[in-house]
């Protein structure tokens, strides 16, 4: 088998892979290749035709293809080496990358590997809805691809399970294309997507959002004919007697995204128990030497602008890694305290300033985000409102970390803890 040496191999040409490649080129890293299994770069943005991308980065509201296009154009201008139709099927801890291409298998031996494979959708299997298995049940992303890439209408009368952003965006899309959307049913007592999507995709079109509801049954022989929805109690268990049958030919699942972690696991990369993406430090280093991760493969983002930013920070770290100037891995553990769903990075050295990304565990108002190091609170930020749907990003200055007590060198460094409380 042909094997080629490379300084950097980037897996995935979505917004994360594209931004990392462009930034690396600008930092003078020439010996790099981007591997993409689809026929074109752009990642999931290629099917997101609605606008709202790029507000933070470009100060204007672009559609997904336009946002991705800006990075693709820049990458092309810089002469980034893209391989499309190149599916990475193997990755080991020695950074050997095995790729299936139309010309056959190719392997690379890389000094650094960047994981940028994005995320995938949870499916019905993971949800275990009883009832028959008729056609007409789609995940929101698959429905989006059918309509926006393949010009195929998925149905005329739809019910949406889960209030994730993609599901709400599809509710609007279906309505605009003439289908009836009967409602969005969410098992939690709050919407899981962004308020802007609740307002612009549901409220604007009079589509009801029913919280604390789920689908308990499906009916239909070849094609879906109806679903039964029911109210759930505080333990998310359906309440008997609350069931209601809704005639429909389509059920769209928008019940969450999880990092694409097959290759990470193959390489022996340790995963974060909450995000299910790799455990990384402030330099985006995973537990395996020379393997880095950013974008949705690391944590599911709600704003693509932050994906690009994260990947650019990763690129700076990778360039330093190649130059041998990255400090050794840090020993300060970063913990999610009360009110916090998760926080990344999971570990920091604390010698340089860094950014924490985190999500609230539940919607709340007038809360304070506190970062404590040992006994000391090193930062407090007040929020009028927090939502699990919105990722929070906080800068931490190395100088603010509590100095380790004299003679404590041999002891474990004290952890950082982040909490969101009243």
């Amino acid at each position, binding site marked *: 088998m042909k094997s080629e040496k490379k300084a950097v191999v980037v897996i995935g040409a979505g917004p994360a892979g594209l931004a990392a490649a462009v930034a690396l080129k600008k930092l003078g890293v020439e010996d790099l290749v981007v591997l993409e299994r689809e026929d074109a770069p752009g990642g999931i943005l290629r099917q997101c*035709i609605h606008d709202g991308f790029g507000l933070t980065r470009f100060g204007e509201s*672009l*559609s997904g293809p*336009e946002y991705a296009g800006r990075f693709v154009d820049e990458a092309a201008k810089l002469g980034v080496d893209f391989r499309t139709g190149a599916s990475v099927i193997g990755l080991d801890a020695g950074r050997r990358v095995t790729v299936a291409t139309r010309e056959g298998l190719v392997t690379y031996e890389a000094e650094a590997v960047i994981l940028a494979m994005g995320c995938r959708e949870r499916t019905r299997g993971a949800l275990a809805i009883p009832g028959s298995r008729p056609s007409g049940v789609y995940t929101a992303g698959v429905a989006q691809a059918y*309509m926006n890439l393949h010009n195929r209408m998925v149905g005329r009368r739809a019910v949406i399970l889960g209030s994730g952003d993609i599901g709400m965006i599809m509710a609007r899309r279906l309505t605009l294309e003439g289908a009836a959307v009967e409602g969005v049913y969410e098992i939690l007592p709050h919407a899981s997507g962004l*308020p*802007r999507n609740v307002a612009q995709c549901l409220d604007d079109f009079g589509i009801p959002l029913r919280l604390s509801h789920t689908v308990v049954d499906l009916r239909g022989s070849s094609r879906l004919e109806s679903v039964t929805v029911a109210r759930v109690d505080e333990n998310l268990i359906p309440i008997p007697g609350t069931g209601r049958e809704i005639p429909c030919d389509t059920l769209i699942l928008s019940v969450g995204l999880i990092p694409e972690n097959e290759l990470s696991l193959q390489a022996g990369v340790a995963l974060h128990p909450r995000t299910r993406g790799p455990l990384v430090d402030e330099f985006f280093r995973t537990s395996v030497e020379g393997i880095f991760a950013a974008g949705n493969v690391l944590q599911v983002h709600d704003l693509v602008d932050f994906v690009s930013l994260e990947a650019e920070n990763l690129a700076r770290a990778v360039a330093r890694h190649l130059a041998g100037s990255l400090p050794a891995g840090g020993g300060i553990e970063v913990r999610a305290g009360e009110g916090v769903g998760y926080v990344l990075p999971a570990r920091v050295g604390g010698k340089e300033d860094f950014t924490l990304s985190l999500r609230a565990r539940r919607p709340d108002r007038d809360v304070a985000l506190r970062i404590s190091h040992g006994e000391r609170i090193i930062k407090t930020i007040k929020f*009028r409102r927090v939502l699990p749907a919105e990722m929070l990003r906080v800068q931490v200055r190395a100088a603010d970390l509590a100095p380790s007590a004299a003679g404590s060198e041999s002891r474990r460094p004290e952890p950082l803890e982040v909490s969101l409380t009243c």
Partner: protein
Amino acid sequence: MLREFTCLVCPRGCVLEADPEKSGDGRVKGAACPKGLLYATQELDDPRRTFSTSVRVLAGESPLVPVRLTKPIPRAAIGEALALIHAITLTAPVQAGQVLLSDILGLGSEAIAVRSVEAGERTAESL
């Protein structure tokens, strides 16, 4: 009656409280910046939206091209604007950014293609 809604101008998403009975700037509370104030006033008096859809393409590598509005239009005009855009059929090639309809319904917004479609055979993707 107080109306509560979320400011959608930026990701911060301030919760705005508006009193439609009052007039002037005093009727909106909760905006962290002047843009939010403008947004709330607009939302009360004349809510505007953009939307995306797709348009048929003949002789292209893809059977359709995604389209968006460049500027928000009154919410009530969405249906009519949509019908105008859906009546269009293009022939490949189509350029990203190409204007398909200008000054829709005299509202100062354009419908533009958001990606290019080359002339040619349909690829596997556009089955």
